[in-house]
């Protein structure tokens, strides 16, 4: 029996969860590097912008891979799949604030990979190709994860807050 599709009762855009999650990751990076409210704010804004672009790119690529699916179906799938970023963001905040870990990059990479795979599975449940829905978002998420690590590390290392 297939797992129920489970329409998420959200009315916000599909990139909301990624934006919130990566705002948290960016804020952690900014705070660790600058230790000021300005640094954290810049990190929050940067993370949110990155996430909106990344989520849009992933949905666009999935649309190319599944031309038979409409834009609304893809957005529904993204809306559900991207929710998986939120647990990683919550755990990253808890790990940094409660345990003093400097591991937000680990959490953000896992968040992108897991949520990318989840979006792909949601697309597959809604009629997308099984194999390409599994592999294409995972590959895109891997590249986006690398891009986030490079961009956030570069920004944190080279900009003066």
């Amino acid at each position, binding site marked *: 029996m*297939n*797992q*129920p*599709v*489970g329409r*998420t009762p959200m009315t916000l855009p599909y990139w909301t969860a990624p934006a919130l999650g990566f705002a948290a990751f960016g804020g952690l990076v900014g705070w660790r590097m600058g230790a000021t409210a300005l640094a954290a704010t810049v990190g929050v804004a940067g993370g949110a912008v990155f996430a909106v672009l990344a989520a849009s790119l992933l949905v666009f690529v999935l649309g190319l891979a599944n031309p038979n699916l409409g834009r609304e179906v893809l957005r529904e799938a993204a809306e*559900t799949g991207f*929710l*998986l970023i*939120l*647990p*990683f963001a*919550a*755990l990253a905040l*808890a*790990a940094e604030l*409660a*345990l003093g*870990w400097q*591991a937000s990059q*680990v*959490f953000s*990479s*896992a968040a992108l*990979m*897991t949520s990318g*795979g*989840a979006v*792909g*599975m949601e697309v*597959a*449940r809604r*009629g997308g*190709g*099984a*194999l390409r*829905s*599994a*592999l294409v978002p*995972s590959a895109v998420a891997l590249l986006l994860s690398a891009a986030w690590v490079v961009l956030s590390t570069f920004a944190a290392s080279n900009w003066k807050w």
Partner: protein
Amino acid sequence: MFGNAAIGPVGSVGSVAERPARTRSDQIKAGLLIFVNPGGALKGALAQLPIPVALGISGTAFGLFFLQTGLDLLRVSQPTLPRLAMTGAGGVVGLCLVGVVYGTLGVAFLAALAWIATRPLGATVALDSTIRAFALGYCPALVYAALGVATNLALGWNTALAFGVTGMLWALGPMIATLREMLGGRIWPSVILATLLGGLTLFGWAFLGT
């Protein structure tokens, strides 16, 4: 590797995963499929595995994770658990055994917590299926832990955070898939429960392993 996953009627995602495993290679494919379709893998071929085998997978994953922690601590000579007699190689082995216990009894306890928490939300899945699914969700963690130990020993890197924690985080995907299956597809309760249970796992490691 995922060839059979593409075959099947529309909507039947991961057909290898959603029929009983007939061969060892089917189970291995399902174990690898958990990386990209955890829900399907856990429902299908992997659902045939006995619970001791499933808990053996999670126990081995945590054992290797804690082994990396012990090796890293030994390498940097940080203070270790005050309640255990941690000295040198004996301490590392001891920490590894703590990890095995954490990965078996701890994961079973975590699954039981999830089973109890989902009862009021209408879940009807049996406890043994829940334990099996939670334990098998650590298949990716086992892969990461094995790679981490190899890297730790071969290159002398501190790998507990990069490989160990990453592996534990990868288990969140299958955990959420399992919870969604138990809760009839509802995503928000699954996400919230997975956050709480994932936090328990990480904080448990932080308390026991560092």
